[in-house]
């Protein structure tokens, strides 16, 4: 009772007051969202259904309906190929990044000597994964599994496989370290969730005779299911936004190309965005049922 009275001190109701202050704090963000995200997004969409020409005075729009989209999907020989390559590479990378970061997080959650040293190593990539750096390192062959990708036997074996099989394997071999390097933040996220799991659960399980192996599958993994979802989403989004991503580079180059243009680039951006959303949806479908089974 006294509490409710307290909030009445300015003569406005609690709910109005909360609304007012809540929006007061979020106000800046809402303006920013409208100005820097929503309006540009709508504008890009408008560009994508127009032929855009940049003139000295401004930009000219000539409506072409869905021509840019059909051009990207049907006429352009490179775009769809790059898009498929991107989907395959993402589907290969995400499980590796997830499993790898989980394993490292499990290691780092244990007690052993020199833990700080190893921790320093595993988080190092977080600070250095910028586009040009990765590009230079990949160009010099420094991100492939040391020694493996250059073995004659392997390249020979790959050449016998059909390209839809050999391409992902080749990608895996040449970019293995790059995938691992994209796992830094995920390790952090896993580690902090691992530390939140109630230790008494493990004690109870071991008293009941569960082995460490069993408690990993029955306690650790189920407790991490939400975290896995977050990590998978994070991995997909980071990989898709990475400036060395071939689709992004292609769209960027087409923006300034004579035969491309802003409208065409806009159409490809939206198609790419759509594929990204599809990937996220697939990931949710794959990872969510496991959460239901637990109950």
């Amino acid at each position: 009772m006294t509490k409710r009275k307290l909030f009445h001190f300015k003569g406005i109701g609690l709910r109005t007051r909360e609304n007012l202050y809540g929006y007061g704090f979020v106000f800046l963000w809402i303006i920013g969202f409208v100005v820097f995200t929503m309006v540009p997004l709508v504008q890009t969409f408008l560009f994508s259904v127009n032929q855009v020409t940049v003139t000295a005075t401004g930009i000219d729009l000539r409506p072409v309906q869905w021509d840019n989209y059909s051009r990207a999907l049907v006429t352009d020989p490179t775009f769809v190929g790059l898009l498929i390559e991107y989907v395959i590479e993402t589907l290969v990378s995400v499980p590796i990044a997830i499993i790898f970061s989980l394993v490292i997080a499990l290691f780092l959650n244990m007690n052993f000597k020199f833990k700080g040293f190893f921790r320093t190593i595993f988080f190092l990539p977080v600070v250095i994964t910028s586009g040009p750096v990765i590009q230079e390192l990949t160009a010099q062959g420094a991100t492939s599994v040391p020694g493996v990708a250059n073995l004659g036997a392997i390249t020979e074996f790959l050449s016998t496989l059909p390209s839809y099989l050999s391409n992902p394997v080749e990608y895996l071999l040449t970019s293995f370290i790059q995938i691992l390097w994209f796992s830094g933040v995920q390790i952090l996220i896993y580690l902090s969730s691992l530390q939140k799991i109630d230790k008494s659960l493990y004690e109870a399980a071991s008293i009941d005779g569960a082995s460490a192996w069993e408690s990993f599958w029955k306690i650790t993994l189920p407790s991490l299911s939400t975290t896995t979802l977050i990590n998978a989403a994070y991995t997909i989004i980071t990989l898709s936004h990475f400036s060395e991503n071939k689709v992004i580079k292609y769209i960027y180059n087409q923006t300034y190309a004579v035969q491309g243009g802003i409208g065409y680039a806009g159409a490809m951006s939206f198609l790419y965005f759509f594929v990204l959303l599809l990937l996220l949806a697939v990931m949710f479908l794959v990872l969510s049922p496991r959460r239901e089974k637990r109950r």
Partner: protein
Amino acid sequence: MEGNLRVKKPDLTKIKTFLLGSRTNYGMVFTVLLYALLIAIGFVYLYPLLFMLVTSMKSPTDLLNPMVQWVPTTLYLGNYEKALRVLDYSNTLVSSILVSVLPSLITAAVCSLVGYGLARYRFAGKNIIFALILATFIIPAQNTVIPQMLMYKNLGLLGNILSLILPALFGQGYRSAIFILIFYQTFLSFPKVLEEAARLDGASDLRIFFQVALPAAAPAFIISIIFSTVWYWNETYLTSIFLEGGIQTLPMQLGKFTQAYENLYPPGMVNIFDRLNEAVKLAGTFLNILPLLVMYFLLQKWFVESVDRSGITGE
């Protein structure tokens, strides 16, 4: 006989415990396996860095010599001298620092405000705002970048650091969504008691935010500023579109290293040893990440340990 058995049994368990571990210790086999794995993975992780460091110190003769793999014959720093010149290091370094630190400070400040509002007030449409915040994280930059660029062009802000600061000021900086969630989690985890006590004493909401909530959120600030700085530093897509022609950051300059090198050392004019080779390129790459490495080793405690405190996991 019986006595003998009794002596032997504990011995066996001792060996077994030593090898396979017990409840309190992991055991020898597991420990050896653990370190072997950790060292192997650690090596794979560091391999590109080691490769870069070693190659960048190879002289042109070492590069051509197939016998020289991991240990250069002499300590050769000529590559670094060239890379420093090509990167225009002192200028690009200063602008890189400005371009990454200023927006990240602003991002942290604004995100703390937004995160606090979301954590402490119940208002209509909050879920929609959460969804939109997540959307800003998912929407690829190229879906919004061209209209933004045209807007800055009209305002005369292209090539100006303001083109990065303005979005940050309105909570739309690079990966702001993550920092909003970090602050949201942080403020949510604080007990409300202190703030209610301050309110009883007649403090206004803003004053409570600044004097009670913010000081307690210091770890969230530090981790946000660090990560934001690193991400802004490494961001090249937006910077190359918004800043090109005005400000050169280190990664931007690295992106056109070959071109810049050939401007300084025209291929037809210099002798074969001064031509661009991978050693110079990798020296440039190393110079590029050096400031971040220094920052990382100085602040590494914060990278790792504040994560549990600031609750980076947004469940």
